[in-house]
């Protein structure tokens, strides 16, 4: 079997296992979608409970539900949410577009800026301004996300009244959406940036003491040339893994920001589905996340082999 075929079959097996876990894990939690459906002070008759369980397919055996689950996946049908009264694909599509609007710019900005600034900080680690930047980003990196979100909201939205306190929009115009998204994106970018900055800085520090870097210097290459033509490429490998993971978890990674800024995105959707045991929404969301994580890993594999010949040879 060729290397590519081996890799593809490995990914397919991983997908089958993860999809099965996506079915099993929600059902391993106590309760089911009916447990928390109608409100704490609503009393149902036994016949109503039986009817609802049947409509939700909860009266079927575990194995039957599992087969139904795979049948739906193969038909690209993500099911129906009794908690949100809508097909799961519609719910996920609506939420996903907002979350991507929120998370994608921060992922890209944080990735690019974090990598470049981190590289400079590692290369010129003795420089005073670089030390100050490192201290700042280390501070951000160590701050609990929830706290930083609240702090940013308190300062910029409450104290200085520059931004709204909640939601994706009020009127729905492009400017209004940008106004609502600016602060959450800024906070998420800061998180992503500081993490990438610290990793890249460490990676550059390690690489710059390598013999090839000394050789390049001895050859008379300029600093910027050594950094961006030789060292940067080698130091980038850990960042690629992290960015691939970020991309995989882009839909669920904005949970804290979504809670603080009252944004109905994917993070909030998954969190709420977990609490209410909304199996179809959980399965649908996990399915999309699985596909994204697997494709991100595949992309990382490809990039690795492009950047590092050792990976190609092995």
């Amino acid at each position, binding site marked *: 079997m060729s290397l590519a075929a081996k890799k593809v079959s490995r990914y397919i097996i991983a997908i089958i296992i993860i999809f099965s876990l996506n079915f099993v894990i929600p059902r391993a939690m106590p*309760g089911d979608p009916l447990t*928390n459906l109608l409100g704490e002070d*609503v*009393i149902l008759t036994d016949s*109503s409970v039986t009817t609802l369980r049947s409509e939700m397919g909860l009266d079927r055996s575990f194995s039957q539900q599992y087969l139904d689950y795979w049948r739906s996946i193969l038909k690209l049908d993500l099911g129906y949410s009794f908690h*949100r009264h809508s097909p799961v694909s519609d719910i996920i599509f609506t939420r996903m577009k907002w979350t991507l609007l929120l998370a994608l710019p921060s992922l890209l900005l944080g990735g690019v800026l974090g990598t470049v600034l981190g590289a400079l900080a590692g290369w010129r680690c003795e420089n005073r301004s670089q030390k100050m930047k490192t201290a700042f980003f280390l501070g951000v990196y160590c701050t609990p996300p929830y706290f930083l979100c609240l702090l940013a909201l308190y300062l910029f939205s409450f104290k200085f009244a520059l931004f709204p306190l909640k*939601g994706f929009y009020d009127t729905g115009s492009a400017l*209004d959406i940008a106004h609502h998204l600016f602060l959450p994106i800024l906070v998420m970018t800061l998180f992503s940036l500081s993490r990438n900055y610290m990793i890249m800085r460490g990676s550059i520090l390690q690489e710059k003491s390598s013999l090839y870097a000394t050789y390049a210097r001895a050859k008379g290459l300029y600093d910027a040339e050594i950094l961006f033509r030789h060292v940067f490429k080698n130091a980038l490998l850990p960042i690629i893994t992290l960015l691939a993971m970020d991309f995989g978890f882009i839909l669920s990674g904005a949970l804290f920001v979504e809670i603080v800024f009252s944004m109905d995105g994917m993070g909030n959707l998954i969190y709420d589905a977990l609490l209410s045991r909304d199996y179809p929404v959980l399965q649908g969301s996990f399915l999309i996340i699985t596909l994204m994580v697997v494709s991100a890993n595949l992309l990382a594999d490809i990039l690795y082999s492009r950047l590092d010949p050792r990976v190609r040879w092995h």
Partner: protein
Amino acid sequence: MRRSLYKLTFVLLLSILILGTVCQGGEDSSGTVLKIGTPNVVKSASILGDSNMGVLAHLSNPTLMKMAEDGKIVGLTAKSYEVSEDGKVWTFPINDDLYWSDGQKFTPDDVQFTFSYLRDNYPAAGWMKNTVDNISVEGDAVVFKLNKPYSRLNLEFATYPILARHIWEKVDKPMEYTNEGENVGYGPFYISKTDLAAGVVYFLKNPYWKGASPKFDSLVIHTYSNMDVLSLALEKGDEDAYYKYAGTYPYASMQKLKDTGNFDFVEKDNIGLIFLGMNLQKEPMSDINFRKALSYAINYSEILKLDALGYGQVPNAGFVPPSMMDFKETAKLEHNLTQAKSILADAGYKDTNANGIVEGKDGKDIKLAFLTRTDYQRTAELMAEYLKLLGIDSEMKSVDSSTWIKQKDAGEYDLTITRSTPWGMLMHANWGTGYFDSRRTGEGVLHVLDDPVFLKLCDDILASTSEDQLKDYAYDLQDYYAENLPAIALYWSKVETPYNRAWQGWYSDPLYGIFNVDNFLSVEKSK
């Protein structure tokens, strides 16, 4: 490189300022808008399928009856009601000056349709299948013929929204019906739009409303997933008032609002309460002496001070709070650890091996499984301390709501801290019976009491046809609670609803707080 990075930082900072400034005052300012912030997040635009949306819909689709300030049930869509002597025929004459927001006349036919439709299609109204035989229109009235006396019918009808026949008769599955656009209603306001992505529900004046005219033009409900941010929004002036179904504004955040000088509070005695529930099917909770000892071990004043910051009062043994109709003054619950220990010892629970933990009747140390939802963890920790002082060990399990419901229904607990909602206190045979009657089940109820005396009392209340008789039963029930302690109220609390002083005329009813038709007809801009 460095210079371009500085430029980039500068551009970023500049754009923050520009964006922040340009987008100020984007609010639609046509007419007078009342803005209310709530932590009750609407998940779907379904007035029958989403409980939070259902509460909001009470303004556009009012109920047949309503609860007055004194707890009595009076007419809202109906003018009043009459009940036959045998309690089996209920007649509700309907107001004849009501119109749907699309211009169609509201008729008794809509009421007849609503209850027939809900009975057949809405699981939460499934009880009607076993109780209501026939619903008919007679002149301007709707008549319900029951197969058994049911004294709570008027109260039940203070919770279901009335639906437009010409809209809903085309809907097969009411729970699945969602509408993010205009919902035809007949109240003073109707829902004009539900924007789930923005977390906003918009209400506009019903142009065909013939009653007292509302004093503002539109109502906007903003939902917040974070309570701290909602508090900031109130403080900042983004919201004019706060609303939470069956809940109060956090007591700990009240002072900050008071400090602004812009806020007042509607203060009401809560019908719902926080209580210690016990699994009466298990030893030693099934022993009344053990429960009495527990009741003396609790430091009620301390719980009231720490959990509710003093906004409430120490409860009575009779459980039912004074804000409920037909309240009876029973003995005040008292903290007396010596008395608690003495009752425990007299009942045979003694620490014979002197290890600090009393032994049960099986001779083993008592270790109780203390199940609690994360919402009440702090109270449960206090309770565990009181138990320890009494010589009772406990193992706390703090879980999410779904797990709590599942484990509670499976009887996998000895003690739990939970709450009753206003409607929860009124459901079934009223006065909290719905939480204990072993013949019923539901998400928030304990259904652990199968004492024939209690069950008969519930049945008597349900079948009662006279108000005097009902009052006697209510008194008997509160005496029963006081003597048998099937649950112990931890405190009777206040419901605090903040509102900006720029608005006045607020009215809160015992069932739905400020979210009632009368309130929104009364609220106006302060002069």
